[in-house]
């Protein structure tokens, strides 16, 4: 099972089919892997850097292979850029940002994060739209200094263009007028299918989160069992020393067995975490990413509706104005044209999101079926193996213990 897992997560992604990329000629190939975590810096400044290796045949890239060093905040930058510029697309989620200080550099945490980043890159690389992103290209190719400049130049994630501010102002205006007009409720889509989908997503998150919580607990408790078995084994061995004789040996054997099992259990702990708990966690995060898209869609819808409303309003006013004050009409006419354009833009934006989202949901469900199917299968295999190993270990004791003369006192038993 091990080699299989490595295959899945090492980032080797098979060629995309032409229909997926939308590129007519040939097949685009983009393969990314995240490896070799290294601790850099010292003290409070310390951080982990990762090696990001790219193999591609895409023309836009500066060559078939490239290796760069990136840190976690670089990945965060990439995620935010993609989110900004690809509304309607479910951006693959990043692993958690923060961690308890002392845990931040534990081998396990680093490995878990590395894997998650690897999965992240691969989901992007295999996405029909995202893999063509300019930001992705920069991320994969820029040298470290350029990357750092881009990262800090970004400044606030919420950096807005001037037109955005204008829009925000207008949005506020809309809300006020809505209130004045008595339209307090936020404008929402009324598509029953979409309603159903929204509820589905919210509930799905809950169910997945519950499954993930329990799986995390299971991993934790199986590990704790491993620890306890070790202590048990030690104390049993000591007791055996006390007893001496054949009984003493029986105790010692039992203790040894418990020790062995303990070792196995604690080792398997990390594996179980990676094949079972982490994928579930990732799916929870993905569902949360879907919710972000849903929020974007709602906002786009609101904007579209509000602009439509205000555009209509303005047109009516214009008609009135043409009759009353023809001299002002020209000015206002320009405004109306402007706002109409914005309204159309908003409509297009909204409709694009709807279109994209539909495709995304189909992809999501397909991927989920496959991935969760694999996860469940791996889990069953792992548990079967664990139980089988456990049985084998205890079984070695039986021949000695089953001897009916075991425990008979021998003369001059020093125990």
């Amino acid at each position, binding site marked *: 099972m091990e*080699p*299989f897992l490595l*295959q899945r997560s090492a980032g*080797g992604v*098979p060629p*995309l089919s032409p229909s997926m990329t939308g590129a007519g000629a040939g097949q685009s190939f983009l393969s990314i892997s995240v490896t070799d975590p290294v601790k850099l810096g010292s003290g409070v400044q310390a951080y982990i850097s990762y090696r990001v290796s790219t193999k591609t045949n895409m023309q836009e890239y500066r060559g078939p292979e490239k290796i760069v060093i990136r840190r976690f905040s670089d990945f965060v930058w990439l995620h935010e850029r993609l989110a900004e510029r690809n509304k309607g697309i479910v951006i693959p989620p990043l692993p958690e940002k923060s961690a308890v200080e002392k845990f931040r550099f534990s081998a396990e945490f680093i490995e878990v994060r590395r894997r998650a980043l690897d999965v992240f890159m691969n*989901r992007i690389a*295999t*996405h*029909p739209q995202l893999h063509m992103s300019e930001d992705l290209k920069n991320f994969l190719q820029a040298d470290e200094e350029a990357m750092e400049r881009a990262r800090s130049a970004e400044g606030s994630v919420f950096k807005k263009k001037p037109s955005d501010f204008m829009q925000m102002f207008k949005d506020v205006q809309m809300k006020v007028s809505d209130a004045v007009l008595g339209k307090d409720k936020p404008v929402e889509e009324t598509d029953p299918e979409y309603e159903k989908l929204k509820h589905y997503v919210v*509930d*799905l998150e809950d*169910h997945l989160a*519950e*499954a993930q*919580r*329990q*799986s995390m*607990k*299971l991993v934790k*408790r199986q590990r*704790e*069992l491993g*620890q*306890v*078995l070790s202590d*048990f084994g*030690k*104390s*049993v061995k000591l*007791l055996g020393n*006390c*007893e001496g004789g054949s*009984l003493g040996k029986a105790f010692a054997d*039992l203790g040894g067995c418990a020790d062995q099992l303990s070792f196995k259990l604690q080792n398997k702990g990390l594996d179980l975490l990676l094949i079972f708990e982490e994928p579930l966690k990732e799916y929870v995060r993905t569902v949360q990413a879907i919710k972000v898209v849903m929020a974007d869609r709602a906002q786009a819808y609101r904007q579209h509706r509000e602009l439509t409303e205000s555009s209509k309003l303005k047109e009516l006013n214009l008609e009135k104005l043409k009759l009353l004050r023809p001299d002002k009409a020209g000015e206002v006419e320009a405004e109306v044209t402007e706002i109409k354009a914005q309204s159309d833009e908003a409509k297009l934006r909204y409709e694009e999101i709807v279109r994209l989202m539909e495709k995304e949901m189909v*992809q999501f*469900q*397909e991927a*989920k*079926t*496959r991935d*969760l*199917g694999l996860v*469940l*299968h791996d889990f*069953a*295999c792992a*548990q*079967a193996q664990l*139980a089988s190993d*456990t*049985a084998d270990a*205890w*079984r070695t004791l*039986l021949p000695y*213990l089953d001897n009916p003369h*075991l*425990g008979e*006192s021998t003369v001059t*038993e020093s125990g």
Partner: protein
Amino acid sequence: MMGSEEDDGRLYTSTDMMESLTLDSEPHPFLSNNSDYRNAMSGGGSFFSSSLQDSHPLAAKPVDTHRLGFQDSVRSSGSLREDLVEPPSYADAIFARDLSHTTTSVFSQTDSFSDVLTITVTNPQKIPESGASLAAGVTSSYVTYLINTHTNISSYQGTDFSVRRRFRDVVTLADRLAESFRGFFIPPRPDKNVVESQVMHKHEFIENRRAALEKYLGRLAAHPVLRRSDELRLFLKAEGKLPLLPTTDMASRMLDGAVNLPRQLFGEGSVILAPQEAVQPAKGGRDLVRLFKELKQSVTNDWGGTRPAIIEEDKEFLEKKEKLQDLEHHLSDASQQAEALVKAQQEVGEVMGELGLAFIKLAKYETEAGYTPVHAAEAKCVATAAVKASRFYRECNAQSVRHLDELHEYLGLMHALHTAFTDRSNALLTVQTFLSDVAANNMRIEKLEAASNKVFGGSKTQNRKISELKEAVKVTEEARDLAQKEYDCIKEHNRAELERFDEERRRDFTNMLRGFAHTQVGYAEKISNVWAKVAEDARGYAGRSTDATSSGLSSMPN
């Protein structure tokens, strides 16, 4: 091995028990009788025999000469007959064991015995306390339990009986056994639990106590010597009020002691305790002066002021004792770890079940929402397996607890060992005390005799004093001899019990290990099978072919 009454293991009877058969109102036989103790004991008009015949169940039994004890040695006109002084034949009490018997036997009452003594405790009932002065609104009551016995031991004279007893009676039984069977490893009784009466009557508490009582009585029944004790038999069979006096009645004993005290302190007359009483450990209230003496003696021993005539020179015993301390320490550790192990396994089982439920809910939800029925079916499969596995974990655990509990049981038994060893050192201390007493008195006699020789004929008082002292010495010497016998007896009990303890412990621990290993193997196999089946079935769902290498392609998300 089924003996007649003559052959059975009841070879040790304490006179203390005998005296407790008297009714409360009777004056203490020894205190009231200042004269030669032999008069009190010997002869057909013996105080004991008459009281026995008339008023107690034991009266039904003939007072046999085979019953060893101090009264017998006394009856034989004061001189100590060799054959009766031998330690009771402990070996007779332990019948040959069937070593291939595989069940754990701390509780098995019939294990290795061809005679049966089975005890169950049932039917707790609340009995309101009558006649107590109570604050308004507070009802006082206590709980009685039905003790059911089934036996074919002939000394019980009957096969099935049931009596009602309360917890206080059990405490009495335990105390009396502790007194009568010094040197034996007496199973510890259930705790008293000093709590408010509210809690006392909670159903769970009562059920726990009932179970604990049953366990305790079962252990008594499994002990080769205790099972044949009169105390136990009375407890199990005597109808109505338990005919055993509680001996921790401090108040009356303080009174008894206080009566003695002035006379002892001022040396008026010689207070001659019956040797039987003398060889019992000096208990508070009973004999304050003796308590002080023994205290002085033990201090003396510690400081090596006087060379004690008897030292614990049984090196083998001391070595054994040290080994046992070691054992106890490790047993305690192992018991704790075993508890932790069971708890950890329990938690794994629990979360496995929760996980199964979570997946079932997920699958159900997805199916109802109309999405991806395929992986939902897989989730259900895995979930069902998880729930099954969870059940197996729980069962495995329940059985493991039963096995590993043996560690805990023996840990509890260590306390009994301590008590038995304390009995031994107490007895030794008693002997040493008498020895010093004798020595001291002899010195005084010497001094007095030397002094009186200077004065012709000596004074009347001096002579009287000398003869009194001589009398006292004689009595003390006899007491010393009896104490020595008692000590030797206890030593032998210790030794024999240790042997039994070792044997039983080895057997029980072997069974424990065997049982535990089998349980772990069995359930691990079951759990493995459950998962293996799912893994096999799920392979189809996962879209995996049996060839692992090609599965990489099928993982393509798009």
